């Protein structure tokens, strides 16, 4: 099917009702001047996994293919697409190439965030060849965007502990593996960030992308960044800061001081909330209303992607849970934090939002 034909087909499918069920996480950042408002799409955690030869895990492929197809249907067009990291499962060229090939169908500019599954085989070498620098910033319609590589760790773990690159990758790939190591942004990158932010007016909205949460939720699964507080400190002087992160494969949102946090769902599979692990204490932000329980018989349930609408420097996220009710998490000016527009009040919640 030619690209033009495929697009026409998707638009046709949209008019037949597909648009109404888009799995959108719509984040809105708005400005005083409506002309400055814009949107972008945010896709993350596809975990493209090589089986052998030309075979890849079908389920994960389908998740990314669906997200790309739906992002291409957005109208009006988003200004760009952010890819939030973990494109690959074990960081191989085969996986990164296959993922890049699927992302190649996206209409418009794509920016990338490094995930640990992309990194720990060759320490980001092939990823960087495909997608460019691992940390950078850019300005877009009055917003300062920063992308960090937040999945670095202690040098000893990275360079000395493992006999092979393959084993290092496998050790970091197991989410609950006690041989893993906590993520961090690191001194070098924080020094760069301080310098980068020095030239930005404090009234400029700042939007930061990292793969791991720049807050500490549960260390056992690396829902964690070791130097989170130090990064938060660098962001503290700005009036409006929003941090988007992947890695957690679930809806999370939080407010710490001036910083609003919003996570992304994965296109591959959802993760349990940390408190569903009975043997350890975790600290899911109290603000977060749980994502609906995923139906294991419906492989795309509780996976998805996000559509971000930038409006007055603040974010409103619309999450569409496949086979479940759509969620909208918007920054509430009155309370000064992101809140679910339908389910924030405990009395408004529905049974699948209580995990056990």
């Amino acid at each position, binding site marked *: 099917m030619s690209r033009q034909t495929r697009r026409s087909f998707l638009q046709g499918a949209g008019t037949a009702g597909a648009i109404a069920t888009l799995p959108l996480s719509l984040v809105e950042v708005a400005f005083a001047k409506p002309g400055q408002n814009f949107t972008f799409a945010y896709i993350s955690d596809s975990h493209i996994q090589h089986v052998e030869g030309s075979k890849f895990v079908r389920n994960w492929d389908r998740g990314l293919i669906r997200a790309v197809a739906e992002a291409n249907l957005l109208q009006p067009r988003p200004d760009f697409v952010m890819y939030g990291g973990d494109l690959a499962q074990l960081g191989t060229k085969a996986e990164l190439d296959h993922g890049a090939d699927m992302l190649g169908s996206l209409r418009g500019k794509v920016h990338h965030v490094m995930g640990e599954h992309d990194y720990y085989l060759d320490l980001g070498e092939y990823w960087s060849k495909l997608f460019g620098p691992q940390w950078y910033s850019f300005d877009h319609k009055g917003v300062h965007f920063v992308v960090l590589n937040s999945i670095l760790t202690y040098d000893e773990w990275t360079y000395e502990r493992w006999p092979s690159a393959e084993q290092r990758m496998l050790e970091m790939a197991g989410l609950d593996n006690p041989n893993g190591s906590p993520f961090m942004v690191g001194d070098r990158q924080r020094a760069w960030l301080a310098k980068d932010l020095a030239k930005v007016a404090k009234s400029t909205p700042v939007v930061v992308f990292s793969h791991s949460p720049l807050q500490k939720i549960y260390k056992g699964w690396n829902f964690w960044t070791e130097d989170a507080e130090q990064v938060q400190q660098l962001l503290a002087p700005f009036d409006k800061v929003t941090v988007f992160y992947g890695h957690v494969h679930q809806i999370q949102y939080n407010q710490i001081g001036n910083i609003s946090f919003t996570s992304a769902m994965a296109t591959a*599979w*959802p993760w349990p909330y940390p408190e569903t692990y*009975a043997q350890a204490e975790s600290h899911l932000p109290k603000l977060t209303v749980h994502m609906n329980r995923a139906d*294991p018989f419906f492989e795309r349930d509780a996976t998805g992607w996000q559509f971000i609408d930038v409006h007055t420097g603040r974010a409103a996220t619309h999450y569409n849970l496949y086979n479940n009710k759509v969620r909208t998490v918007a920054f509430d000016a009155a309370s000064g934090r992101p809140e679910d527009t339908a389910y924030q009040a405990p009395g408004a919640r529905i049974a699948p939002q209580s995990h*056990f």
Partner: protein
Amino acid sequence: MRAITLVLTLAVTAIASPGLHADEFTPEDLARWQAQFEGVVAEGRALWGDGKLGRNGVACGQCHPNAANTHPETYPKFQKQLGRVASLWEMINWCLRNPLEGEPLAADDPKMVALLAYATWERRGVKLEPGKH
């Protein structure tokens, strides 16, 4: 008198040959059984992260770190997707067939026993609530 003699005889026999009675065991027995159990749990933990359990390299732990969201304490329960009451091993087989694109295991297959032992061990201390959704 005969009854007392019989009791005494039994008591003497029990002391003379410990272990003949199923309800008597020693700290050594307990330690051995515990070690057996922990060995199977460890085997289950290894299988949980093993990409070779199915056929596409996907492992249980990719979606269920620390066997979370398997809630073994709620089984057996009515599984609306199956339309009947099911046990946890049937759900594990569903995962083996679908996300892992592999073959199901018999309920008493040592691998299935190990997977169940591991998932249940990770949920230790949580109260039993069979049937809960």
